[in-house]
């Protein structure tokens, strides 16, 4: 089950039948009590990838991509906040989570400035319930390991979104900012993966998608 890939089709179109099947399998796993295993968490990333893809696919412009990215960063800030307040983290891990939350906030702030410079309107601030739209199950985390695995899924989703954005963005500065943010999310992944004894850099091309 671990090898199962997220179902996202290369051209940005999602195969709904496949997703329905995937969701069915996931529910089966949960029903059988496998809990928050890596595969289950991975499966839950589908909604975000689809929504991000759709947003990017639908938009011809940089501003829509920026709005999606700002929302995504805002959700990451909230998710790290939930993790910090969960009582599940050691002192050291709490420091890491605070640091990463600060980074996500810096990304959101920079992207918001870029958007307003372009004449765009920042999106509404996301709420806690919106985290589910990216990675489901933040309310069911039971250990520091669960939190790390959840954060890995979140960061992978962000990396995947920026990876896809590079096909669509036009503005040179935005492309460069996107790459430097994406690279920072990848660095978060290294620390999180090491925390749960996973390979820190499993793919030569870090696309945010499992191989």
């Amino acid at each position, binding site marked *: 089950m671990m090898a199962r890939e997220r179902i996202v089709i290369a051209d940005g179109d999602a195969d709904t039948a496949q997703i329905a099947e995937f969701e069915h399998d996931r529910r089966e796993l949960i029903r059988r009590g496998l809990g928050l295993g890596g595969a289950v968490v991975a499966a839950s990333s589908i909604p975000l990838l689809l929504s991000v893809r759709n947003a990017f696919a639908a938009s011809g412009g940089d501003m829509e991509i920026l709005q999606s990215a700002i929302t995504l960063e805002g959700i990451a800030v909230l998710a790290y906040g939930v993790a910090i307040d969960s009582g599940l983290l050691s002192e050291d891990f709490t420091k890491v989570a605070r640091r990463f939350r600060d980074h996500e906030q810096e990304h959101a702030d920079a992207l918001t400035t870029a958007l307003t410079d372009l004449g765009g309107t920042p999106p509404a601030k996301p709420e806690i319930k919106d985290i589910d739209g990216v990675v489901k199950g933040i309310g069911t985390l039971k250990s520091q390991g669960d939190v790390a695995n959840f954060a890995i899924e979140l960061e992978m989703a962000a990396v995947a979104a920026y*990876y896809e954005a590079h096909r669509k963005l036009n503005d*040179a500065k935005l492309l460069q900012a996107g790459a*430097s943010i994406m690279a920072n999310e990848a660095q978060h992944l290294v620390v999180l993966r090491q925390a749960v004894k996973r390979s820190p850099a499993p793919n030569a091309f870090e696309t945010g998608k499992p191989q």
Partner: protein
Amino acid sequence: MDVDSFLRDPHSRRRFFRMSGVSVAGGSAMFLAACGGDDTTSAPLGPDESDEADVEILNSALDLELMAVAAYKAGAARLTGSVLEAGKLFLEQEQEHADGLASAIKDAGGKPNRAKSAYDFPQLGSQNDVLRFAVDLENTAIAAYIDALPKLGKGDLRATAAAIVANEAEHVSVLLGALGEQQVPDAFVVGKAA
């Protein structure tokens, strides 16, 4: 190519960035100005759609990847344990980048550059020497890719370049961790043009 001078001598770096069409003086701001773009407008800067331009940029990146492969090979003798394992993994990944770039160059009708017969690396007397040198190399590559990225005409190539940047950034975090340093020092990874 003399890596040490590449990292420390502005002329070598300038050559890379000139090849990739980006002026090194002033970095991306200069690039924007040179293109007549205004920092604050959304006017597309019109990536160069020509395959020839992509080939030049990709070959410059390939040179750096081939140098990184040689550097990890040269440094491996000084590494032990989990750091050696990481070094081997990174060597393989730099080779994967090089192979990917060579394919892209061929696809664009170009001829991939080859590795130099010899690289003049600095003295790497200890594991820490290797780690620091590797951090420098990775940061140089990150800066070069980020500078060159907007010049790539094809969306697929830009996405691939970004995926390579992210992997090089992962290498930096692992290397910094092995040095006992802060693994994620900044919210924005821009590398260092030496």
